[in-house]
C-alpha cells in the first residue's frame, strides 16, 4: 500500500473523484497554477484543465456564492477557502444559503458541495491563520462538519463527503498536513460520515478529540497509562452529526470524560458534547466532564504552545478526572 501524508491523500481523493465524475470541480484562491498555498491541489489543473481547477479572484463570498449556483445547476463544487480564518466573508452565503437551500425550497434545489479549508494552529500563524471555527457551522442547521486526523481517514472522508448529498464543511488540520505518512489504499474508498474511531480502548476515562489535537491526546493518554490510568480515546472524525452511540457507549463504561479542542472554550463544540453526555449518560457519570481547550482570547502568535490544549494540559485533566 502506498504511503502518503495528509496533503497527498487529499490530493489523491480529489483526483480520483474528478476522474470518476466530470461534474466535480475545484475552485478557490491559488488552487490552480500554484496548487494551493499548502499544495493540496497540486497537479490537478494540469490533469483537469483550467475549467475544472479554477483560480478565482480574491473573494470567498464569490467562491461560495458561485458554488451554490453551480450546485443548483448540477455540478459538484469543491471550493477551497485558503485558511478557515478567511471563511467569514462567505459566512452569509454559507449560513443563509448553503445551509438552508434544500429546506427552504422543499428539496427542489440543494447546495451539495464540499468546502475544504485548513484549520487550527501549530504553524505559528497568529490570530488569522490558526483559528478553529467549527462550532459556528455545527450550530447552523443544515451543514455537516468533518475533520480527519490522518491521511487514510482524510482520503476516505473526503470521498464520502463528495458523494454525500448534503453540504459538508471539510476542515483539514494544517498541523497534520505533512506531519507523518501512513498507509493509504490507492483506490477510491469511503470512510463513512458520522462514524467515530475508537483509537485506544480503556476503562477509566474517555477522551474525545479530533484533528491535530488527537496526537496530543494520544501522548497524554500514554503518559496517563504509565501512571495507571486507562484511557479510551475517541477520534470523532465527523463532528456533526456526531457519532453519538460511540460516545455514549464509552462514557457509560468509563463514567468519566475529557474533551479536547483548539477552539476557544466558551460555546465551543466541547460544550455541546458535555450537554449531550448529560442528556444521554448523566446517571453513569462519576465525575464532571472536563474540557481542555483553547482559551477565550484571540489566537496568540508567540505563545501558541501555551494557548493550544497540548499534552501538558490534557494529562492533568485526565488524571484528575480519573481520580475524582
Amino acid at each position, binding site marked *: 500500500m502506498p504511503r502518503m501524508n495528509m496533503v497527498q491523500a487529499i490530493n489523491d481523493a480529489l483526483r480520483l473523484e474528478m476522474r470518476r465524475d466530470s461534474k466535480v*470541480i475545484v475552485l478557490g484562491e491559488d488552487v490552480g497554477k500554484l496548487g494551493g498555498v499548502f499544495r493540496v491541489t497540486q497537479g490537478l489543473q494540469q490533469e483537469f484543465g483550467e*475549467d*475544472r481547477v479554477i483560480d*478565482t*479572484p480574491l*473573494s470567498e*463570498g*464569490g467562491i461560495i*456564492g*458561485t*458554488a*451554490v*449556483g*453551480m450546485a*443548483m*445547476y*448540477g*455540478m459538484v463544487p469543491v471550493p477551497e477557502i485558503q485558511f478557515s480564518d478567511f471563511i467569514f*466573508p462567505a459566512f*452569509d*452565503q454559507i449560513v*443563509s*444559503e448553503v445551509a*438552508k*437551500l*434544500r*429546506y*427552504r*425550497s*422543499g*428539496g*427542489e*434545489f*440543494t447546495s451539495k458541495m464540499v468546502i475544504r479549508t485548513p484549520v487550527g494552529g501549530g504553524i505559528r500563524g497568529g490570530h488569522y491563520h490558526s483559528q478553529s471555527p467549527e462550532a459556528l457551522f455545527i450550530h447552523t*442547521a*443544515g451543514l*455537516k462538519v468533518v475533520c480527519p486526523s490522518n491521511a487514510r481517514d482524510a482520503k476516505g472522508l473526503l470521498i464520502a463527503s463528495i458523494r454525500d*448529498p*448534503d453540504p459538508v464543511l471539510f476542515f483539514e488540520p494544517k498541523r497534520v498536513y505533512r506531519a507523518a505518512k501512513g498507509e493509504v489504499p490507492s483506490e477510491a474508498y469511503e470512510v463513512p460520515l*458520522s462514524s467515530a474511531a475508537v483509537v485506544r480502548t480503556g476503562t477509566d476515562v474517555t477522551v474525545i478529540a479530533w484533528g491535530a489535537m488527537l496526537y496530543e491526546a494520544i501522548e497524554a493518554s500514554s503518559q496517563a497509562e504509565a501512571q495507571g490510568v486507562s484511557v479510551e480515546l475517541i477520534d470523532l472524525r465527523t463532528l456533526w*452529526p456526531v457519532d*453519538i452511540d460511540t460516545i455514549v457507549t464509552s462514557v457509560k463504561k468509563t463514567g468519566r470524560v475529557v474533551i479536547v479542542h483548539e477552539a476557544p472554550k466558551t460555546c465551543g463544540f466541547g460544550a455541546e458534547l458535555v450537554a449531550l453526555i448529560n442528556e444521554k449518560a448523566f446517571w453513569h457519570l462519576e465525575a464532571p466532564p472536563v474540557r481542555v481547550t483553547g482559551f477565550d482570547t484571540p489566537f496568540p502568535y508567540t505563545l501558541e504552545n501555551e494557548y493550544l490544549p497540548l499534552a501538558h494540559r490534557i494529562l492533568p485533566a485526565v488524571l484528575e478526572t480519573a481520580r475524582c
Partner: protein
Amino acid sequence: MATNADQPLSFPADMIRVLRADGTLDPEHDPHLAVDDVVALYRAMMRTRFIDERLVMLQRQGRIGFHIGSLGEEATILGSAWAMRAGDFIFPCYREFGAALLRGMPLQRYLDNMFGNASDNAKGRQMPDHITARDARFGSVSSPIGTQITQAVGFAWAAKLRGDDVVTLVYFGEGSTSSNEFHNGMNFAGVYRVPAVLLCRNNGWAISVPSDQQTATATFAQKGVAYGVHSVRCDGNDLFAVVSATRAAVERAARGDGPTIVEAMTYRMSGHSTSDDPNAYRVDDALAPWRERDPIQRVRSYLIKAGAWDEGRDGELEGEFDREMKQAIAEAEKTPVPSIDSMFADVFESEPWHLREQHQAVVQGPRPQRQH
C-alpha cells in the same frame, strides 16, 4: 489625456425608450413584437397587478401574514422574464411572482405559498412570496439581500462550462447594488464572461432610502464599468424597451459575449411591503409623475391605438382574474397547515439521529396553545 483604448469607459447612459407618448414605437430599439404577444404581455401585467391588489387586501384582512408586491414595476418584471428563452433560467429577488406565473408556475401553487399551507411546495417553511419554482426554471427566493446575484452568476458559469445554451437572468433592486454579493457576482461575471443578464430594478427606493443616497453615482448601470460588464439602461415602465434591452442582453450572452447589467428605471408605487408605511418618509406628490408613466396604461393605449384592444375587455379580464383568484384562495385557505413531520424534513436528505429525536419528541409531546 485619452481614455483607455482597450476598454471604453463610456456607456449608453441615455435610456433605451421605445414606446413614445403618442403610442408609436421608436424604430431604433423596437423589438418588433407581434400584436398577440403584446396582448399576452398586457394580460400578464394586468393579472400581476390584480393578484397584487387582492393579496394586499388579504393581508389587511389578516388572512395572510405578508405581501411584497410589484405595483408599478410590472413592465420591468414581465418584459424581462418574457425576453428569456424557454430553456433559460431566472434567479428571483422577491418581487417577481409575476415572472414565475408567466413561466408557468400555477396560480394555486403561489397561493399555497402565500398561505404557507401543506400544499406549498416548500411546506410553509418560508414567508409569503418566498417561492421556489424549479419546473418553471425559476430559483428560490431568500430574504438576505444580494445572495442570489452571485449564485446566478455561478449557475450561468456552470452552463457555460457544460457547454449548454442557457442564459441566466437575475433580479435585484438598486439598493442591492450596495451589498457584498452584487460586487462578487459582478466581478465573477466579468472575469468568467458568463452568460448572464443582471437586471437591476431601479425602483427609486430601498425601503425608506432613496436611490440617490445609495450611491454617489448618477446611474446604477455605470457600475458595470468597474467589472468589465456591459451596461445598459432602459425605461423600466416601457414594456417594449425592457423587452428590447433584455433580449439584446440575452443574445449577447448566448453568442458568448458575456454578461450585461440592465438598469430598468421604474418606481415602487406602493410601500416596500405590507409591513411598511411609506408616508413616514415620502410625500405622495412623488408618485404623480410616475402615475403618468404607468407601465400598464401605456401598453393599453398602444394596443387600443393598434386596434387590438378596447377598454371593455379589461372588465372581462378582471372577471376572469377574480374567478381564478377566488378559487385559488378558497382552495389554499381550506388546505391544512403543514404537518409536524414536514418541519424536520429536508434539513438533510435523510433525517440524522438528532433530528429524529427532536422530531419524535414533538410528535409525542403537547401541542402549543396557538398553533399558528
